[in-house]
């Protein structure tokens, strides 16, 4: 699926604010209902899971495995590569 707001920022270094959640495929940031995966991070440190974070990184499109590949994983999506993060201060 394509999110127009995220699609417009592909390839750019961005800072996204959302909730840290551990999805089946790895750590993700839930941004307006959209899981943005953190490239290379399998799970959030226990003290960060569930918290609101600012995550900076390069927004990339991640292609899920094609159905004919018969592989386990997300069907598509977005990720932040070279990510760094900090608790969001409101």
């Amino acid at each position, binding site marked *: 699926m394509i999110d127009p707001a995220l699609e417009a920022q592909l390839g750019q270094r961005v800072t996204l604010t959302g909730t840290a959640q551990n999805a089946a495929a790895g750590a993700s940031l839930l941004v307006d209902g959209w899981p943005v995966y953190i490239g290379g991070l399998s799970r959030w440190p226990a003290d960060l899971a569930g918290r609101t974070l600012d995550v900076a990184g390069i927004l990339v499109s991640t292609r*899920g*495995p094609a159905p004919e590949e018969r592989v*386990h994983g997300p069907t598509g999506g977005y990720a932040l590569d070279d990510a760094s993060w900090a608790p969001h201060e409101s």
Partner: protein
Amino acid sequence: MSSVDARVQDAGRGPAAETPTTAREDPARVAAGDPVSSAAGLLALQRGAGNRAVGAVLRARGRAPRRALQRLGYRLDKPLPSGAEKPKHGSDPDQRRYSIGQFTKMWEAQFHALSSSEADNVLRGCVGITALNLGLGPLVAPTDLPGNKVYGTFAKARAIAAAKNEALGSIAPGSPIQGYVVYAMLFWSNRDPDPKKRGKPDPKAFRPDPRTGEVDMSTIGDIYALARPPDYTNFDFGFWDESTQTFWHANHGTYAGMKTPEEIYQSTHARFAHKYWENGEEHVSYPDFDRVVYGVASTNVKPEKLLLPTRDEHIAAFKARVAAGDWGEAALRLNGFNTDDIKRLGRTLTRDERSAIIGAAYSAMPGWSDRVVDNLTEVDKEPPAPKPKPKPRRP
């Protein structure tokens, strides 16, 4: 700020390239006509010659040679033995997280070198780990096999698999392997092909039949393409290992675009599949899923420990036969217990029930009913248990 400090080391398609391809070991065939090489043969011999004669024959044969057995990992409720490799991706009390390389080494040390198609299975993630343990090829999922029934609870699937294994009888040394195992699948309940309509869960879908416990999976659709939108994982399979009492699964497969390494998990049942509620919605283990089903499948991969009925399940089955007045079947089931248990269960029966079982035992087990008849007769001769003293009344 913190950052991702560890990158994929072994997420490439390494094992297939590095591991020499070897053929599966060719199982020795049972010698034709050998009556003690199969459960059916043993039973026929028991019926014809009696227990003592069969026992003498078996003792004369000596101990059966130990077969090579599959055994991966160690129980989670005990520390890793000295010399065991530490899980590369860390561990918790209820989960160990191994790399593909470590999993491959464990498999090869305990079983055989992975063939290229088996290595391909490992790289598919959880579905591949389960397919590998079921002896399936790399394009197959357990849900592709129409004979595999699935159930709403682990206990139900386990009991079905155990009963099927018991019905198969013992595996004769050197014979081809066939046994029943349990696997599980986590998935999203709404299977609408339109992702815009698939976001909300379907509370009524994939619920167990209250009578049979079975779950109808005929509307599951394409398990690879249909996931919770947007961009969640399509499913999570887990293979139940009776020996270590854990599920084996993975976070995902290895494919282009995935930067997070594939990790192979060994988890307790509770860690693998636990229900929770968030924002009024049911989930199982992750936001990606809201259903878990447990399947029973036949495998030709040798398990370290065959899943069999527990002692409690045997006792429950015996009591059910007694309650139904099926005395011959009750006698047969009683014969499966050790002497102490036969007496213990015999004491829970009335004298009439014991007499009925003894009467039926002769025809249910002609020539080999001694254990049941003798032990129940001994219970009959026991003095009645003293009545408990009444508690003194308080003034």
